[in-house]
């Protein structure tokens, strides 16, 4: 199942991004803009490797021996009925589960050569590399600008114009710049739900992550905004490894390259999206995607 754990590109990228010099940060940001990762060598590179990953909340086992690979610069969809552990799995990838006292995990989970489950892993740095977008848009009660600038300000000392550049870059990338450019200093809570969610995506990519985790990013949005986010994901897949949890089968089939189906904490089936939706290997998968349950 596991191929190479270490990908050299990945390592180089993260080293570049961990430099704290503001100028080099800017250089990094622009470099990423200018150079989408489309070289064939990277096509099948693995970003995240899970082996025998199990997870518990107290004595309740939420994940049962999950092994899968998430490929670099692809969109991977996690589908499955509610409570099957999709969010739990997602939250292990950037260790958001650390905030839940009863949560613990065993097995292997690696991002590049970084052991994500090790207690010595610097979670603050990890979350910079692995951004997360939640189901409900959660902009801070601050201005639009301050929302996007929040992450960069946490990690870097930036001059005003550098910050402005990053904010504009992120908002453009998240396809919301045109709608907010005239009111950057207006409260973010005044935006519509879809705009708020794109703002949250902008906020996440502003810190320069490699991986984007999205936990049902569209389920609180209207169809129009959902479409906008899906288009955005298509745009972003060139530069980010995206993992999306969704309840929407059409969404999974439309935007993902690979799909993993979970049921009661177990990985039932993972394959490229095309095959999962046209020709599932497992009966459960077929039942689920054809809407017979869940």
């Amino acid at each position: 199942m596991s191929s190479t754990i270490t990908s050299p590109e990945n390592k180089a990228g993260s080293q570049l991004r961990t430099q704290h010099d503001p100028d080099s940060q800017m250089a990094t940001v622009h470099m990423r803009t200018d150079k989408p990762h489309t070289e064939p060598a990277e096509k099948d590179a693995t970003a995240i490797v899970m082996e025998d990953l199990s997870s518990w909340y107290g004595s309740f086992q939420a994940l049962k021996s999950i092994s899968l690979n998430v490929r670099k610069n692809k969109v991977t969809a996690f589908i499955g009925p509610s409570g099957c552990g999709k969010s739990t799995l997602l939250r292990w990838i950037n260790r958001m589960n650390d905030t839940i006292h009863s949560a613990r995990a065993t097995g292997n989970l690696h991002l590049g050569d970084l052991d994500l489950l090790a207690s010595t892993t610097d979670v603050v740095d990890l979350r910079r590399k692995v951004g997360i977008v939640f189901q409900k848009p959660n902009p801070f009660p601050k201005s639009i600008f301050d929302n996007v600038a929040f992450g960069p300000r946490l990690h870097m000392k930036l001059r005003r114009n550098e910050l402005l550049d990053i904010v504009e870059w992120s908002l453009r990338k998240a396809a919301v710049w045109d709608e907010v450019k005239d009111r950057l200093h207006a409260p973010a809570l005044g935006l519509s739900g879809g705009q708020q969610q794109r703002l949250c995506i902008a906020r996440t990519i502003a810190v320069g992550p490699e991986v984007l985790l999205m936990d049902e990013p569209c389920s609180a949005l209207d169809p129009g905004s959902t479409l906008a986010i899906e288009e955005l994901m298509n745009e972003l897949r060139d530069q980010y490894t995206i993992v999306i949890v969704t309840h929407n089968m059409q969404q999974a089939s439309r935007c993902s390259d690979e799909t993993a189906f979970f049921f009661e904490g177990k990985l039932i089936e993972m394959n490229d999206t095309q095959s999962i939706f046209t020709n599932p290997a497992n009966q459960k998968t077929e039942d689920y995607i054809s809407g017979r349950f869940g």
Partner: protein
Amino acid sequence: MSDIDSQDDSNMSADDAEKPSKDGHIGEQSVSGPGGTPKTSLLEARDPDAFDKPTLITTRSRLAKDFRFRVMCILTACASVLILVFLLGSILGAGIPTLSWTLLTGTPEPEPENAGMWPALMGTLWVCTMCALITLPLGIGTAILIEEFTPRNRIARQVLALIQLNITNLAGVPSVVYGILGLTAFVSMFSLFDNSDNADGPSMEVGAVYYDQFSNVASDPFIDTGDTEAEERYFLFPVETRDAPSTVPKTGMLAYENSEGGLKEVEIIAIDPFADDAPTDADALSRTIDSTSDPGRISEKQWYYLRLPFGRGVVAGALTLMLVILPVIIISTQESLRAVPGTLRAGALGLGATPWQVVWNVTLPSAIPGIMTGSILAMSRAIGETAPILIIAGIVYIRSAPQHLMDDYTVMPLQIYNWTSRPQEEFHNIAAGGIVILLAILLTFNAVAVLIRHRMQNKLN
């Protein structure tokens, strides 16, 4: 959103044999999330075979009930407002005529028409400012620790839970009890600092300079006229430490004269009280002292003067009031922190913020209006608190505003209490005047706070 919930419901129940199965339609009606209470009883009640047709409650009777409840609410609201209006009216009626500049800026005097509450006003200001400076950081910090930095360690969590239980209970303890605690803990400090050579003085001091005072000289060098300040002149001599051997005054010794222009260095003339060679010119006379006089001592204390134990000073009062309001501040801060949505914290954490960055940049800014409201209510309580101050400071006759942190003080409620306990009617009236001043201060305080709070809330949204 609700679509997804209902999906969850039906799906969970399909998997879980314990839960009664329900069809999709009822699932959609159900308001509870996954694992909520089953609503099968509703289904049965609607089954026409199982029950007779239910009798409908008429709209009219429901409206009547609504009306009765509304009247009750209005009546209770009116009752409390009426009581307040009556109290305020009678106080304002008695107090406003006695309001005068003297009442505000004067010192407490035996004659009601000259009496004022300046020392009490300043005492309240000193004690409450100190109290706020100590209590707010402490209380808010504790609340942040409990709410935002809950440890992963189970034992540490249980210790915190115990602390929480204590705090909740302490909020209900009568303030007199805190007064007694303050008396032992702060005023006398459990007698830890008592030592035998120095039974009445403090055992540790910083920030005070002492001068030995040889004598009072008036027109007659050997008669201590004492009581009238105008006639007093002090000869002062600085000593290194207060334990230095007492200095016997000698002619030629340098001393400080405490005169109008401040301290002036002069040379002492010491003479035998029974000799008749006393100088006659006024300047020499002012430097002449009785050579047998026993040096007294006067001190000059700075604002940073500190002594242990605290004694009946401003700091002891502030700390005792801290005991009274700390639980209130902690609890109200906790409530405001809890009201900040967890999604905001998760958002900040997900961007790589450290727990402290989350608190400082996200949680605190959102919670500040609530924290301020709680703090203001608590401070208002501190300003009005009488019982603990009565215990630790007692009713003392204070003629001046506190000059330093260890100075004796009195507070407004205590001064008012003092006046109301006098037999003369006039004192009762100026007490009412004092209450009006106290109320005005409280209202100003609250108004300013409400304003700031409003500003902040507007900025957030």
